[in-house]
C-alpha cells in the first residue's frame, strides 16, 4: 500500500533562481540551503513519489479555461521558465497513480480537472528539480495545480479537503510507494501590484506559526480580502500550504527557514510537515 511519509512547504519566487551565484547574498545562501535541506529530508524519508501542489500565475491556464484543482495525468515537463542551471526537459511522471487519484476523487465528490500533457511552471518545476528528483529513491512527480492566484480562487476549506482526498487516494493505491507532498507558494507578496517588493513579516510569521502548530483551521479562517490588504495577492497561495497540510494530516510542523530580504519580492517560508 502506498502511504504519505512526509510533506513540506516552500517558496518558488523566481527571483531566487535567476541570480548568478557570484551575486548571492548571505540570505540567498540560506535560502538555497533550505532547498537543499528539504531535498536531503526527502532522501532520508526514502520517498519514491512527490506530489507537488503549485499555483498557476495566469500563464499555463488562460481566460479560456481556469481549473479549480487540476492534476497532471500524463506527460510532464518543465519548468516553463528558463533559469540558469535548472534543467527544463521531461519530468518523470506517474500517469497510473495520477489517474487513480483523479478517479478516486471523482468517485468521492472531487471532480478533478486533468491535464493529459502538462508543461509546469516554476511553482512545480523548481521544487521538482531542486528537491525531489535529485534523490535516487525518487521515481516520479505528480503535479497538482490549485486556483490560488487567479480568480475564481479555490476556497481554502476546499484546498484542505483536496489534500485529504489526495491522502485517501494514495492510501487506496495498492502498490508500495512512499509519497511526499510539497506545498509550493510564497507567503506575503504583491505580484504585479504597485506594492510589489513589500513583504509583511508579521503575517508570514503568523502563517508559519500555524504550520508549526498544525493549525490549518486558523489559515482556512483568514478572510481573503484581509489577506489581499495586508499580505498581497501572492499570499493567497497559502492555499497550497493548506492543501499539503491536509494531505499530510499535519498535526505539527517544523520551520526550516524564513527569509524576507530585499533580494526577493516575497516572504520565503520553508517548513517540514509532520503527521
Amino acid at each position, binding site marked *: 500500500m502506498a502511504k504519505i511519509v512526509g510533506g513540506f512547504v516552500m517558496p518558488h519566487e523566481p527571483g531566487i533562481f535567476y541570480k548568478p551565484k557570484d551575486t548571492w547574498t548571505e540570505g540567498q545562501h540560506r535560502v538555497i540551503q533550505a532547498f537543499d535541506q528539504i531535498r536531503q529530508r526527502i532522501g532520508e524519508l526514502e520517498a519514491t513519489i512527490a506530489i507537488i501542489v503549485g499555483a498557476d*500565475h*495566469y*500563464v499555463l491556464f*488562460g*481566460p*479560456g479555461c481556469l481549473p479549480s484543482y487540476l492534476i497532471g495525468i500524463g506527460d510532464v515537463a518543465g519548468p516553463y521558465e528558463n533559469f540558469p542551471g535548472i534543467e527544463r526537459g521531461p519530468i518523470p511522471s506517474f500517469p497510473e497513480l495520477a489517474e487513480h487519484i483523479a478517479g478516486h476523487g471523482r468517485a468521492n465528490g472531487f471532480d478533478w480537472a486533468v491535464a493529459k500533457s502538462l508543461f509546469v511552471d516554476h511553482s512545480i518545476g523548481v521544487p521538482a528539480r531542486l528537491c525531489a528528483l535529485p534523490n535516487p529513491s525518487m521515481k516520479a512527480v505528480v503535479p497538482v495545480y490549485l486556483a490560488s*492566484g*487567479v*480568480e475564481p480562487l479555490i476556497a481554502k476549506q476546499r484546498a484542505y479537503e483536496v489534500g485529504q482526498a489526495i491522502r485517501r487516494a494514495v492510501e487506496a493505491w495498492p502498490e508500495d510507494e512512499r509519497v511526499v507532498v510539497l506545498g509550493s507558494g510564497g507567503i506575503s507578496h*504583491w*505580484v*504585479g*501590484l*504597485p506594492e*510589489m*517588493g513589500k513583504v509583511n513579516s508579521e503575517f508570514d510569521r503568523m502563517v508559519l506559526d500555524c504550520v508549526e502548530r498544525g493549525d490549518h483551521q486558523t489559515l482556512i479562517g483568514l478572510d481573503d480580502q484581509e489577506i489581499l490588504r495586508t499580505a498581497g*495577492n501572492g499570499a493567497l497561495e497559502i492555499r497550497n500550504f493548506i492543501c499539503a497540510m491536509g494531505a499530510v494530516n499535519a498535526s505539527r510542523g517544523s520551520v526550516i527557514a524564513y527569509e524576507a530580504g530585499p533580494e526577493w519580492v516575497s516572504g520565503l517560508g520553508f517548513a517540514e510537515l509532520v503527521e
Partner: protein
Amino acid sequence: MTIYALETALHDLSVKREARAAFAQDAAGFLRRYRLDDRERAMIQDFDVAALQEVGVNPMLTLGFWMMNEPGRSRAAYLERLRAGRTSEN
C-alpha cells in the same frame, strides 16, 4: 461588456510568440482580433498598466504583458509606470 476580452488579449501577448510578433509589428491591427472598444485598445497600445488594473485586469497579466512586450522589459520601469497612475484618456 466584460474585461475578459482584455484579459484574453493580454494572456495571448504574455504566452504566445506569434501574438507578440504581430503586436510589435502592427499593434492596432493585432488588437482588432479581440472584441475591444477604443478605450481598451488604447490601454494596451499605451502600456497603461495602471488603467488596466483599474478596470479589474489581474495584475499577473499586466506584469506578464509588460515584461514580454514593452521594449525595455524592466520590472522597475513597470512599477514606476504603475505607481504613476493611469495615462489613458477617459
